[in-house]
Each structure stands twice: as structure tokens, then as C-alpha cells.
């Protein structure tokens, strides 16, 4: 096969040679399509305050249009054959026996699959799991081997007729005999996933240099000897040894601390849960053998990753491959559709479709059985507190998590949990470690919260208990220890921007729920015999971002003043598309007339990437970055959290560039027309006086111009009329210099830039527009944040605090959430309705985690295929205090505050707040989540 040039230049470094890849979001059907642009185009979409009247995707979603990947069948996909085949898998429900084969004898002759695929078929065809260290070593359990994990598929069955598929699937459901097991064996999980440790000892004062910290010195890694972790030896030979010595010093101080201190030791447990995204995992794959094209319609939060890994999977097999064509619809996963293995099962199914598209779509039982879970955490915490002042002297927390039978992100989740364990407190000395174990459980992954819900909840329950033991007000104790701007976190890094936790504490302390809690308790309990009343507070902040956030956006306008935005981001629920359009409007005074999201073709950005933003050495990065077309990463997986800040940065930079390079010079030119320099001459007007608002252009008392007038002038003058930027953030923005004709070199927080010149630009300029009609402006003096910055863990935080009011029925143990109030700081809100919607949704999820949701890990757990929402309880409208709950958001410090990512933090504080409220109500502390009626009954009996 002739090697084709990749259509996506940036994939050159990592894609399989000779395979071209395109990724796109599905063009919505004609009816829904007009919804992607404002239904009644233009200003009508915004109300008089500049807020959108509804989400860009509202009409499609509310009328039942095909929007989700799950909604599409072959006949709905352009150029696909219309006949749709359907597949399902048979799963192992025992992990201590050899798998011997499948027995399909319960199926009548006509219900036998058109194609049965077993591990041995995959071996024969050269199909292997592309990243075995991440996804596990096999797709299907090999004959004679013990499954790695419960729920692991053993066979794939493909049917060309839906009715037969449907009937066969129903017959085999709960049919234990379908999987034939042999002799009993030991469990067969993969090796454990990793152990890490973050030790810090501050200098004398918070602002002084740390004596030891992960950022300044080292993160410490342990090695597994079986199920035991061996940490390096303490000493002074290197940074790691000194770190272990520092840990020993903290340990020693805790042991020795006597009089005048409180040493509280508590163990906590946070359970495994299923995020239960309503859309279960699914995909539809057509392998066009004749042309060597693999077409995918996939529900995924990481489409580029799926495309690249699929290319590798197929290219290494006997199936010929020239190109990959991946489409996505809308999807929702709360992290569980990011880097999950499911899409690759779909690819395997597609390869055996005998030329037909094959759809593999989990039902809810299968989703419980195979979908990524939230990690269970076991935490052993110790906190040393000065009795007189309430100041925390030191805290240690040693956690272990069970990642289940595929590695996935378990190691990373474990250490992100450890780095968040400090919650909102400044800790002069700390030692947090995390161990990620493998087991036969269904694997856990990057589910919303990412380890931090678990560790911060524990710390927030602990601080509440410390307050009680010290007889201090729990909010006052927090104030004494609160983390302030400029302080260092447990990794030794200084978080970016202002930390406004004190303001939140002030508001919480003054809130009626808190102020009146003792009185209310007395009256409530007098009025409701058999019920106890309690109020609990908790306060957390969560980092947002991944340490390798990349985005690409373009904005341009035509001579008629129509504004177009193209964006790499795609929608997953929180309203990304809506808020990105609004952000462009804030700077340019006009929302785009047309928007296109999930754009994958960026010919104007001929970038190359190695896509190893975490693991590349500093040396290599220094060498590579000299190539002005290299970037550490082209685009990052979409999550609800990263979108508003990181994606928004690219929009704002593109909009600012247009303002500076187009609107300012064009407006000046119009104002200087006429004899003696026009209306501008008698005034000194500066660029910072330029105001773009409501479709008008103003500055320093000059006559108002319309957006259209200035746009036309910019085209007439041949100015920059389109800007595409690429951005990269490693807990800090990459910056570079760009020499834009007519403006000279200027530094911007972006790492690649392309511009388009106006219709009447000079031939000289036009000749430079060779990159898909754009001028790719090569950068100079690029600076990428140093790789060491990865050790900082995180530097961007958004805080949320919640007060929860509960009553507990002492006979039944039932907890009723009477009310809750949340206080949030999220920078500047772009679309408040979307922010409050996310908060309300996160709170509901937290309520489920605190009180209801629970999965056993092993044989009784979801891997056995019997779990659905009848036994797994989710919060309903009645459970969330729907009509009484309230929230407030701190005003931004100024109108230039960036928006913060809040999708994850919103669900955390409510969890320990409820636990603390139950403690207030019952006088008993609960250390294991969820706090169920049984546990309460037992404690009260």
C-alpha cells in the first residue's frame, strides 16, 4: 500500500506510518443543524444583558433529534452500507477458574451467531491490545487461562439480524452455563500499579523556602514486593533518601508530641461507585476491507486517542488499513468514557463484520459489568494539632486503592488523591502516600473526582472531629488553618491566583443554617420525636486541568462583518459550546454568527507532536521545541472541567489578537479620515480605550462605529482578519513571540499562530497564506513551562463549600436531607445558568456518594452482571432538597478574572458536609461511605 501523507499533520509523530486519520463530530441532521448556530442567527440568541437565552444545542436535545453516538445506526451515517449488524459479548463471572470455552447450546440453531469470535481468533489474525500496560494484556480470556478480572469478556457474538441478536442476547443473559470453567486456580490479576509519596517540610515560615518538597526535591516512588510496598531507604545520598528521612522526622514528631497537642488517628473508607452516565458505552464500526478504511462512530471523551489506538490495533493485525474515519456524536461519561477499553472491543467487532457495520452497545447490566468505576480508597490519616491555637502542625495520610483488573489511570488517580488530601489547609509538615493495587475487580478509571473526592472527604470529616475534640467551632478551626494566597501546597508549589477560602468561611459562618443550628436542633427534635437534627459544614477545593492542556481555535470575519468561530472542543453536557461562543463575544462585542465545534481539520496549523507531554525528558523537549512546528500535545481529552478555562484561554487569545491586529488599526483609520487627521487628531486615544460591545466599536469619545464598518475597513486595508491560535498549558501557559507583518514581534501566551489577511491585502501578504489559505507565523523564543512543573501536581484551584442540614430517623436510620447551601468561587462566570446547573448536578452526585451508592468489589459486585439501578440506588428528585437548596457565588475580584473549572469540585464538599451533619445529629461519627440506614441503626442501637 502506498504511504499516504497524513491529513492531520500533527499526528505525524505518533500515528502509525501510512495510515491517515480523520476525526470529526457528526454533522447533525438538517433539522438539528441549525441549532448549532443560533436558531435565529445573530444577536437574538443573547438577551439584553448579553446572556444566551438557551444552550446552542438546546433544540436538538429537547426535540429528540439524533444527538448521542448511541442514536446512530448504519443507515444514519452517510456513505455507510445500510445493513446494520449487532454484537454482544459473553463475560466471565468467575475469576478463580480456568476458562475452557463457551457453550451456546441454549441457543436454537437459528439463534447461533453469524460470527463467534474468541481469543484464539484474535491471535490468528494478529489482533492484540495496543497498550497492554494500560488496557491489559488480552481482549478476550484465552482458553485455559483464568480471567484477569470479573466481567472480562470471553467471546464476541455477531448477528446480521436484529431480531435474532435480540432473542439470543436475552436467552444468554444470566445463563451461567454459557461460560465453561475448568479447575480452580489462584486469582490472576495483573501486577500492582504503583506507589508514590509526597513529603514536605516547610521552612520556618510559609513564605520561606521549603526544607523539603516534591517540587524542589523529589516525588518518592515505592516498589511492590508482592502486595507489600517497599519505600526507598532514608539517608542523605540523594533527594529521595532525604525525602524518606523527612518522612521519618514527621513520624517521630507525631510520636513524641505530648502535652498541648492532639494527635488524632482515623481510618476512612470511600466506596467504589458506578458513575451511571445515562448513555451506556457504545460504538458502531464498519471496516471497509476493499478500501482499507476503518469507520467508527464512537461514544468517547477522547476521540483522538481512540483514533490513534485503533490505527495501531488494526495496522498490526492482518487487516489492511489505509485510513481511519472516526465520528462522534454527543456523549456523556463523567470521565468514564475517557481512555476506556470499550471502543477497542467495538473495533474488534467491526473487523469481523464481514463488510457490514457492527454495533456494540452495552445494556445497563453490561455497563455495570464493564464500565469504568470510581476508585475505592482506604485511608489512614493522622493529624497533629496544637490544642491551644488549633493550628495543624503536621498531617500524614496513607491511602490504598483498588484499581481492578486493568491498569488504566489507577496509579495517577491514586497520587492525585494524595496530592489533594490537604483539602483547604496549610500544612507545615505533611507526608501523603498512595498505593494503587491490582485485583480481580472491574477496573476503575478517571471518574469525576479523580481520587480527590475520596481523600478530601476524609480530611473534611477529620477536621470536623478535631473541632469537636478541641471544643472549637468547626468553621473557626478551618479559619485558623486555611490555605492563603501565596502559600505552598503539599507538593511545595504555589497555586496560581488568589485563594479566597477565607471569604467563603466568613459567609458560611454567618449563614442562618450555621448560626441557628443549635437552636434549630432543640426545636426540631422537640417537635419531631424520634428524629435527630444536624448541620454539617465542609469546604474543599479542587484542581482543574491535567498538566497538559492543549487547544486550537480560529476566529475570523468577512468584509460584511460576519464572525466565524471554529473550535476543537466538543460538547459533553456542561455547555462548552455555549460558553465558548459567549467568551468570544465578550472581547469582540459580538457573538459569532456561525460556530463549528469538534473541528479536526486544521490545515493552517501544520504542527507536529510527540504527544508525550508528561514523560518526555527536559533535554528532548528543549531540542524539539526549536522546531517552530512542534508542540508537546495538539489537543487534550475533553472533560467538563477543563473546557471553560483551558479551552476558553484559546478563544480569548484569538479574540484579543483580532481586536489588536484588526479592530484597533481599522477603527483608527476610519477615525483619522479627512483633512488634518480627521476626528481623531485633536484627541489622544489609546488602544486600551477601545471598547467593543453590543456590536459597536467605541474609544475615547470618538464617533461610534459599527462592527460591520470596522470589519469592512480591516478588509480594505488588508489587515489581519482571521486568527488561529494553538495553546498549551503545563500548570502554566506556554508563550512565544510572533512577528506579525505591520506589528513587529510580540509575545503572547500561545505556542502557535496563523493569520489571514483581508480581501484587499497586498500580494506580498497574500503569498504568505500558504497553509490552507492562512499565513502560519513561525514562532520565536518559545518558552514551555519546565517539565519539573509536573511535580507541582496542580496549581489551579476552584473552591466550593457546602452546609448540609439533615434529619435522622432513629428507628429506621433513614437520613433526610432537609436543605443545603453552597458557596462557590469560580472566577468570573461566563453563563451563570450553566454554572448553577453544574453545581446542582454535582451536588446530586455527591448526595448519592454520601448516602446511597455502593458496589461490592468482587464476586457480589458489578462484574457478576446482575447489577442495575434497581439494586444500585441513585438520587432522585425527592432526595436532593430540590425546592429548598440554595447557593451563592463570590463576585469575581475584577471583571478580568478568568473563569475556573468547577465540574468536579461541585460534587465533593456535600459528601463530608452530610457526614458531619449526621455526626451533629446523632453524636456518632461514621468513617465509611456511604452512610446507609443500616449503619446508622447499628450505631444507634
Amino acid at each position, binding site marked *: 500500500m502506498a504511504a499516504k501523507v497524513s491529513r492531520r499533520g500533527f499526528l505525524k509523530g505518533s500515528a502509525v506510518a501510512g495510515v491517515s486519520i480523520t476525526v470529526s463530530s457528526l454533522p447533525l441532521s438538517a433539522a438539528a443543524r441549525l441549532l448549532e448556530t443560533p436558531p435565529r442567527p445573530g444577536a437574538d440568541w443573547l438577551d439584553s444583558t448579553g446572556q444566551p437565552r438557551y444552550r446552542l444545542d438546546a433544540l436538538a436535545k429537547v426535540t429528540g433529534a439524533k444527538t448521542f453516538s448511541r442514536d446512530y445506526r448504519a443507515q444514519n451515517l452517510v456513505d455507510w452500507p445500510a445493513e446494520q449488524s449487532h454484537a454482544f459479548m459473553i463475560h466471565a463471572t468467575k475469576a478463580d477458574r480456568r476458562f475452557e470455552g463457551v457453550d451456546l447450546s441454549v441457543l436454537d440453531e437459528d439463534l447461533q451467531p453469524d460470527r463467534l469470535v474468541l481469543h484464539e481468533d484474535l491471535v490468528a489474525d494478529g489482533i492484540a491490545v495496543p497498550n497492554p500496560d494500560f488496557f491489559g494484556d488480552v481482549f478476550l480470556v484465552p482458553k485455559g487461562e483464568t480471567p484477569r478480572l470479573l466481567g472480562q469478556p470471553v467471546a464476541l457474538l455477531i448477528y446480521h439480524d436484529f431480531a435474532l441478536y435480540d432473542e439470543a442476547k436475552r436467552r444468554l443473559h444470566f445463563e451461567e452455563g454459557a461460560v465453561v470453567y475448568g479447575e480452580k486456580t489462584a486469582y490472576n490479576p495483573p501486577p500492582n500499579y504503583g506507589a508514590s509519596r509526597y513529603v514536605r517540610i516547610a521552612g520556618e515560615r510559609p513564605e520561606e523556602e521549603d526544607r523539603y518538597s516534591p517540587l524542589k526535591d523529589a516525588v518518592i516512588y515505592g516498589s511492590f514486593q508482592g502486595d507489600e510496598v517497599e519505600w526507598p531507604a532514608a539517608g542523605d545520598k540523594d533527594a529521595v533518601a532525604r525525602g524518606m528521612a523527612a518522612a521519618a522526622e514527621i513520624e517521630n514528631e507525631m510520636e513524641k508530641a505530648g502535652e498541648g497537642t492532639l494527635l488524632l488517628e482515623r481510618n476512612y473508607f470511600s466506596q467504589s461507585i458506578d458513575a451511571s452516565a445515562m448513555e451506556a458505552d457504545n460504538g458502531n464500526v464498519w471496516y471497509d476491507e476493499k478500501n482499507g478504511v476503518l469507520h467508527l462512530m464512537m461514544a468517547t471523551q477522547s476521540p483522538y486517542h481512540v483514533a490513534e489506538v485503533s490505527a495501531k490495533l488494526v495496522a498490526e493485525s492482518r487487516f489492511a488499513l489505509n485510513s481511519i474515519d472516526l465520528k462522534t456524536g454527543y456523549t456523556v461519561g463523567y470521565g468514564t468514557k475517557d481512555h476506556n477499553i470499550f471502543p477497542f472491543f467495538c473495533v474488534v467487532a467491526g473487523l469481523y463484520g464481514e463488510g457490514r457495520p457492527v454495533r456494540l452497545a452495552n445494556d445497563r447490566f453490561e455497563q455495570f459489568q464493564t464500565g469504568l468505576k470510581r476508585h475505592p480508597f482506604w485511608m489512614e490519616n493522622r493529624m497533629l494539632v496544637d490544642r491551644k491555637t488549633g493550628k495543624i502542625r503536621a498531617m500524614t495520610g496513607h491511602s490504598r486503592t483498588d484499581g481492578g483488573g486493568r491498569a488504566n489511570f489507577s496509579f495517577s488517580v491514586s497520587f492525585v488523591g494524595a496530592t489533594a488530601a490537604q483539602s483547604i489547609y496549610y500544612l507545615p509538615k505533611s507526608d501523603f502516600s498512595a498505593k494503587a493495587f491490582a485485583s480481580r475487580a472491574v477496573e476503575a478509571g478517571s471518574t469525576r473526582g479523580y481520587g480527590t473526592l475520596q481523600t478530601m472527604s476524609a480530611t473534611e470529616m477529620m477536621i470536623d472531629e478535631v473541632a469537636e475534640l478541641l471544643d472549637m467551632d468547626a468553621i473557626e478551626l478551618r479559619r485558623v488553618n486555611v490555605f492563603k494566597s501565596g502559600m505552598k501546597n503539599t507538593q511545595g508549589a504555589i497555586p496560581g491566583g488568589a485563594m479566597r477560602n477565607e471569604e467563603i468561611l466568613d459567609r458560611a459562618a454567618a449563614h442562618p443554617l450555621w448560626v441557628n443550628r443549635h437552636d434549630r436542633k432543640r426545636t426540631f427534635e422537640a417537635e419531631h420525636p424520634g428524629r435527630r437534627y444536624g448541620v454539617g459544614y465542609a469546604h474543599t477545593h479542587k484542581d482543574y486541568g491535567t498538566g497538559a492542556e492543549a487547544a486550537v481555535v480560529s476566529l475570523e470575519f468577512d468584509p460584511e462583518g460576519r464572525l466565524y468561530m471554529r473550535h476543537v472542543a466538543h460538547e459533553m453536557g456542561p455547555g462548552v459550546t455555549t460558553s465558548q461562543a459567549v467568551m468570544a463575544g465578550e472581547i469582540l462585542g459580538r457573538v459569532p454568527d456561525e460556530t463549528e465545534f469538534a473541528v479536526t481539520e486544521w490545515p493552517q496549523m501544520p504542527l507536529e507532536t510527540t504527544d508525550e507531554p508528561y514523560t518526555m525528558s527536559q533535554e528532548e523537549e528543549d531540542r524539539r521545541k526549536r522546531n517552530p512546528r512542534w508542540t508537546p500535545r495538539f489537543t487534550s481529552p475533553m472533560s467538563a472541567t477543563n473546557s471553560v478555562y483551558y479551552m476558553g484561554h484559546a478563544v480569548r487569545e484569538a479574540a484579543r489578537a483580532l481586536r489588536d491586529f484588526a479592530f484597533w488599526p481599522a477603527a483608527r483609520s476610519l477615525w483619522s479620515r479627512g483633512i488634518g487627521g480627521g476626528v481623531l487628531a485633536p484627541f489622544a486615544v489609546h488602544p486600551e480605550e477601545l471598547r467593543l460591545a453590543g456590536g459597536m466599536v467605541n474609544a475615547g469619545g470618538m464617533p461610534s462605529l459599527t462592527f460591520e464598518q470596522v470589519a469592512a475597513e480591516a478588509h480594505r486595508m488588508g489587515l489581519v482578519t482571521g486568527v488561529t491560535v494553538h495553546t498549551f498549558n503545563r500548570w502554566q501557559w506556554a508563550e512565544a513571540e510572533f512577528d506579525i507583518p505591520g506589528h513587529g514581534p510580540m509575545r503572547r501566551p500561545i505556542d502557535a499562530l496563523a493569520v489571514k489577511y483581508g480581501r484587499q491585502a497586498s500580494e506580498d501578504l497574500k503569498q504568505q497564506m500558504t497553509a490552507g489559505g492562512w499565513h502560519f507565523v513561525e514562532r520565536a523564543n518559545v518558552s514551555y513551562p519546565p517539565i519539573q512543573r509536573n511535580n507541582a501536581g496542580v496549581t489551579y484551584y476552584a473552591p466550593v463549600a457546602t452546609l448540609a442540614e439533615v434529619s435522622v430517623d432513629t428507628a429506621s436510620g433513614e437520613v433526610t436531607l432537609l436543605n443545603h447551601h453552597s458557596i462557590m468561587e469560580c472566577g468570573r462566570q461566563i453563563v451563570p445558568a450553566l454554572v448553577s446547573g453544574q453545581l446542582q448536578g*454535582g451536588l446530586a452526585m455527591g448526595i448519592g456518594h454520601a448516602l446511597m451508592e455502593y458496589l461490592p468489589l468482587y464476586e457480589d459486585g458489578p462484574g457478576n452482571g446482575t447489577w442495575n439501578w434497581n439494586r444500585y440506588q441513585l438520587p432522585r428528585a425527592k432526595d436532593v432538597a430540590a425546592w429548598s437548596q440554595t447557593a451563592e457565588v463570590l463576585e469575581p475580584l475584577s471583571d478580568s478574572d478568568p473563569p475556573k473549572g468547577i465540574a468536579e469540585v461541585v460534587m465533593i464538599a456535600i459528601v463530608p458536609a452530610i457526614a458531619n451533619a449526621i455526626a451533629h445529629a446523632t453524636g456518632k461519627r461514621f468513617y465509611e461511605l456511604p452512610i446507609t440506614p443500616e449503619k446508622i441503626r447499628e450505631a444507634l442501637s
Partner: protein
Amino acid sequence: MTRATKPMSLTVNDRQVGPVAVPEGLMMQDFLHEYLNLTGARMGCGQGICHACTVVVEEEDGTLAEMRTCIVGAHWFEGRRVRTIEGIAERDTDGAVTDLSPVQQAFIEHFSFQCGYCTPGFVIGATVLLDRLQREPVSREDLEEVITEALDKHICRCTGYIRYLEAVRDVALKTPGLVTS
């Protein structure tokens, strides 16, 4: 060879469907998805728990009922009038939406949904509730509880329900005759 089928006819979104040969054990949800290409009634649990899959059945006397399509066989709908989420808004002859129902309009104005997977079920549930209130108005002080009760069976994982409930309250209060003072 295919399984035993039975002919069935029904009305879906005012359109006469059938007779079509439909397997006897096929669930209505699969009939809508795989035979009629109507995928708005969504699969959430497949077990009658989440109500993501509901449709409106228009009874002979004109009243509306909410039915789960994941646990009710297609043949149960023989001869009935069914309205799916795709048939709630007014459409022109090309199928383009020309007017939303009051519930749909309220949901978009309240930013009620996020991912939107559960939205069809909530539209159906609220539509049937409002139809009931037309015949059996509620007092103002019971309104919130009646709404919560009616929609409690619908699961949503993104929104925490508030904006759905508030939107429905809005429509109930704005529509004459649903709420007695």
C-alpha cells in the same frame, strides 16, 4: 431463518404505521429504535427503572398516559396512538421544528438539561403531568410536591433535577386552569 413474527399496526406521531411483521418478544423500545429509526426514547436501564424510554399513549378519551417502552412489548401498542419525543414539537412538512411545546420551551429557557440524554423522558413525563392537571387541578401549595412526585421516577445524572422541576412549575403556573389558588 427468522423468529416468529406477528403483524402489527399503530399510529406513531399521527402517522399510520404498519401492518409490519414484528417478532413477538420485541420490546417497544427496540421497535422504535431499530424498525422506525426513532431513537429519542432512550435506553437507560432497560428494566423499567429510569423512565428515559417513555412515550405518550393517547387514550381514546383524549387523556395522555406515560408508558415505558423498555419493558412493554411492541405488540402491546397494537392499534394504539403513540407520541414519541420526536412528535411533541410542531414540525413542517420537511420535519423541521417550527414550534416547541410549552414544556420544551420552558426546558430550554431554564437551561434544564445538560447532556440531554434524559430529556425526552422528562418532556414526556411533564407533558403527561400537565395533561392530568388540566383535568385535576392542584392547589398552589401542593404544586411543588405534585411535580416532584410525578417526575421522581425519572433519573437524571447531570442536573440535580432543579431546573427541570422549576421549568415545569413555571408552565403549570402560566397555563390557566392547572393550579387553583
